[in-house]
Every structure is written in C-alpha cells, then in structure tokens.
C-alpha cells in the first residue's frame, strides 16, 4: 500500500510541473503549446552544463530555469503571438516546428548520448515494506514546494488574481486596466521556469536526454486535458489520476479470477489504460474533470 502510494506520488510529481505550466499558458493563449515540453529537455541539459561548470546543484537548476523562462517569453513574443493571429491550429503547428528546432539545436550541441548529472548517490530509506531513495524524496519535496508556492502566487496575491482574471475573460480584464501583454509574458516566464525545473528533477533520477520532451508530450497533454485546460491545479490532479490508474492497473493481481497463478495486465497496456481513463473522463465531464469555467448556456 505504501509502495503504491509512493509510486503514484513519484509519477504524479514527474508530470505535474510540466502539465501545470502547459495548462497555465493555455488559459491565456488558448492553444496547446507543444514546444512547452521541449523546455523541460532544454532545462535538463542546461542544468547538466551548469553542473559541469562546477555550480552547486540548486544554483544550476535556478540558472537553467531562468534561461528557459526567458526562452519561453522570447518565443512567445516573436513567434507564437504572430502565429496566434491566424488561429490556434496555426499556433499549434508552429509550436511543433519550434519544437523540432529546439531538439535539433540540443542534438547538434550536446550529441545523442544521455548526459548524467553524476550526483552523489542518495541513501535508501525503508518505509514499511517499500524502499525509497533520498533523491526521490528530495524531488518530491521540491515539486510539492514549487506547487505550493505557485498556489500561493495564484490565489493569494493580486498578481495571481490578475492572471486568473485574464484567463477567464480577457476583454473584461483588459477593460479593467490589466496590462494583458505584461501578464502574458510573466505567465510564459513562470511556465518556462517550471517546465525547466520539472525537467531537471526528472533528469536527476536518470539523465538528461534529447528525446525527453517528445516522450513527455502525450502524458502531459493527457494530464492537462483531464484537469481541464486552463486550470493549472486541475492539471496536477489530472496527473494524479493518470498515475493512480497506471499504478493500479499494473499492480492488481487478477490471478484469483483465473486459477491462482500470478496474473497481471501486461505493462505494455499501461499507456493505453491512461488513455482509456482520459476518454472515460471526457465522456463524463466534457471540459475536463475540474472545469469551473462559466459558459453561456
């Protein structure tokens, strides 16, 4: 049971920062930015570079986060804002093109082999019948901290209020005096930073590799959609639901139904199961599970 909980939490944490950023930006710009997952990959590599230059780990993560945030703002200002004028599908395909270019740059600069952070190996803690490494506890704690800080920003500060206002009704917010473009830039910066930190944390447990962004697209998109696009906290809960489904599906022993021997659903169906949950959830709640947007009846 504890093992189940820990596995679920770890999987959720892997996805949540990235899904959160995606959903957050969607609320303002109304297109699914595929290049967002490439910020995770870029951030992971920049952190690796920072570590190689000798920076302490937290410093490296911070620097790479800032650089990715700036990259996100830059790309939005010069590329996506222009593409959006012709529609969201246009912007989505444009983000695909940008995504390819980012991968190409990193592939050319860093090569195709995974780059490990070479951090000192953490201690293993035994909690009930499950084992967890201190590195993973650290990543979980970091993720929770950042999510908490983000919630604090969104719900308890005037800046957060203006972001939410802009997301729910752009024209009215602009009419009330909010500076839409500054807020959009700020949001892009935050989302870029979070994606980068998310990527570094994932890479901490393995290594930074070029395909990291592409491998994250489908799960992150699924988590963001499940939670309702534009609802960042919903994205985290969406990630949680996906993690729970996947862990449950692979750990239930169906052997008792069919004669005693251990029988599990093959792990090859893990991803399919999260997509099935996605479809079921959308059938029940067409705008995502945690949608609170007001729509005209």
């Amino acid at each position, binding site marked *: 049971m504890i093992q189940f909980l820990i596995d679920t939490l770890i999987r959720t944490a892997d996805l949540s920062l990235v899904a959160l950023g995606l959903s957050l930006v969607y609320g303002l710009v109304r297109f699914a930015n595929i290049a967002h997952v490439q910020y995770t990959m870029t951030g992971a590599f920049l952190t690796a570079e920072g570590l190689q230059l000798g920076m302490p780990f937290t410093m490296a993560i911070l620097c790479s986060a800032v650089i990715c945030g700036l990259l996100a703002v830059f790309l939005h200002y010069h590329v996506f804002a222009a593409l959006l004028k012709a529609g969201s599908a246009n912007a989505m395909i444009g983000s695909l093109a940008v995504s390819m270019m980012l991968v190409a740059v990193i592939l050319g600069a860093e090569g195709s082999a995974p780059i490990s952070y*070479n951090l000192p190996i953490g201690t293993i803690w035994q909690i009930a019948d499950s084992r967890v490494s201190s590195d993973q506890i650290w990543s979980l704690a970091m993720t929770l901290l950042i999510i908490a800080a983000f919630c604090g920003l969104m719900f308890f500060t005037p800046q957060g209020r203006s972001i939410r206002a802009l997301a729910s009704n752009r024209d009215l917010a602009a009419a009330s005096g909010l500076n839409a473009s500054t807020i959009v830039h700020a949001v892009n910066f935050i989302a870029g930073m979070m994606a980068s930190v998310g990527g570094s944390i994932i890479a901490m*447990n393995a290594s930074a590799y070029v*395909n990291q962004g592409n491998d*994250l697209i489908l799960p992150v998109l699924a988590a963001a959609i499940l939670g309702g696009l534009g609802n960042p906290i919903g994205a985290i809960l969406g990630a949680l639901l996906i993690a729970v489904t996947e862990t449950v599906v692979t*750990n239930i022993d169906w052997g008792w139904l069919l004669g005693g021997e*251990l029988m599990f659903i093959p*792990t090859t169906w*893990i991803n399919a199961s999260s997509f099935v949950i996605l479809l079921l959830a959308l059938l029940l709640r067409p705008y995502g599970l945690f949608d609170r947007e007001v729509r005209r009846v």
Partner: protein
Amino acid sequence: MKRHLSQIVAATGITFVCSINTALADVNLGAILPLTGTSASIGEDQRRGIELAIEQINAHGGVNGEKLSLIVEDSASNPVTGLNAVRKLTQVNKVPLVVGDFSSSVTIPVGQYLVKNNLLHINISGTSTDVRKIGKTSYSVIGLDDLSARFSADDVLSLGYHKVAFVAPDGAYGQGMAEQFTKAFEKAGGKVVAKVLYTSGQPSYRRELQQISRSHPDAYVYTSYGQDAIVLNREAWELGMHQTPWYGMYLTMAISGSSGQYTDGQLGMEVAEKAQGEASSAGQSYADNYQKQFKEKPRSVYGSYAYDSMMLAAAAINTAKSAAPAAMIAAMQKIAPTFTGLTGTLNLDADNQRQTQPYLKVKALSGSPVNR
C-alpha cells in the same frame, strides 16, 4: 505569394543541380541509421564504427585504389523515412550497397527494397528472426536473436537459475528477444515466470519493476539500452531488486551510462571482442581508436558490427575488382560466409545469417563488462 513560390522553386532547382554533381571519383557506400529519435545514441555509435572502418580502409590504400566514402541518411526509426532514404541512396547516389538500420522495423522494408532491386544489403543490428526472410542479397553480420537467446539461456541455466523474469523494451527488438529467449530457455528446461515489455521513454519504471518482482524469480534477465537502461538500473537498485541476480543480454549497452554502483555485480553476456581483458588485437585497437577519436568508450557492440560490415563491403569490392552491384553480389556470395572480422568469423548459412557467433560470459565491474 508568387515571390515566395519562385524562391522556393529556385532553391529546389539549385539543390537539384548540385545534387547531381556529387563526387564521382570515390566509391560511395550508403548507410541508413537512426540519427534522431529514441535510438539516436546507438545510431551514432554505429555511425562512428563505420567511420572508423572507412578511415582504416582508406589509410591502407582504399578499395581498388579508390577512396571509400560514406553517405549516411537518417531514418529517424521510421519505415517510410528509411524507404525514402534508400531510394535516394540507390537511385540518385547510385550506391551498390546499403548498411542499416538499427531497428528491425526499418531494416526489413529497406532490405526488401534492396533485394528486389538486386542490390546489396548488410544488416548490422536488426536481430528479429524475420530478418531471415528478407532475401538473397541481404547479409547479416550480427547473429539473430535465436543465437544470442540460446547462449544466454544455456548460460543462465548453468548458473543455476531455473525460474527467471524477463525485461525488455516494447518494440521490434525487445519483442523478438523475449520470444526467442522464452523459447530457448523453456526448451532447455527452465521457466520464464514473468515477462515485462516496458514502454520506452518513461521517466520511471517503478511500476513495471514492482510487477515483475511479485513473481519472485531466481534471476532477472534483461536487455535494454539508452536512457531506459539507465533508469531501469537505478530504480532496480533503489527498490532493492539487485539482491536478486540480474543477467544482462548485451551487457555493454545495458550498463552504459549507469553509475558503477547501480550495476556492479550484474552478470551477462556480450559479443566476443567487447569485454576488457580479452580481445584479439583487432578488437583492442577498435576500442582504443574509438576512445581516442570520440573521447568515450564504445556505447554498444553495434558499432563493432557496423565496422565489420564496412570491412566486409570493402573486401567484396576488392575481390570483385569493381563496385558494380552485380559483380559485388557475386563476390559477396564467395567471401561473406567465411569472412572474419572484429566480431569473429561470420560462418553464414544458406539464408546469409550467422550460424555461430562467439559470445563471452561477462560480469559488470566498475561500470564495464569484464570476463568471468
């Protein structure tokens, strides 16, 4: 719009004209490798193996007095891209022989095309037994899954493990390996109690590892590469699963990139030549040359197979005294079955597949495989 259109047409036209003026003096051979995508790190390893071979060949006078040169195309692990690449190589660059790909799902259509057009194909890493059916002018320098599976199955049994769990990536490579290993192991009297084919590219494999540990096997037999291998090894160690023995097929790529602490003590098998401490002089110098030129150890054994494929091709051209496809095919038929390279003597059967492949029993020590 018209301006853009004419610019595009102009650019295309220029590219056309230029592409026709490719170097005519060299002998060109083609390679199709995954240079982007999941298998990019292994594709790069293979490309380097080929480059080392070509340098070696040209340093010794080339083929028939001409320089050998390589045109490499990216398949991105996609069959249609691979087919476009092989068409370009054969119809435009007019290469008589193409080497590649890494994954069977690209190797098979590319090989089929080459066979249909009476050109030579050398398979350097597709190990699915479907490769056998590609055709008469397709040669494999790598032993197919049935060879490696049989060796591993016997080795695992001889180590005393009768109940094993099998872990491999869910793709052409892993599925083929799982099938062959299960067949070989159960034929020899063992039992595969659990099988996990993990989906590539996940940040964590804890769930897969949890599921497979429930079956309490005597040992875990696994094969993996790239990023996934690093994650697997680390998480298996963190979950305490390293207390049960792990046996890695093609151990070098399975432990490549992982810290020694996570992998030390693993057992495995590897193609002869790759392990430290015993190598023919040719093998040693391959690893040394690789290290010198690329500043890192060879990432997998596939680079050596790629190296061998170039040597084989050069030998065929030298025997045929020409680089024309028909002459080369005749030469290959003559010399390929008994060709000896880094990875041993080919010893090909009637389907141009290896009947024997020297393997080594190895174990992991400080992050590298050594003989046991």
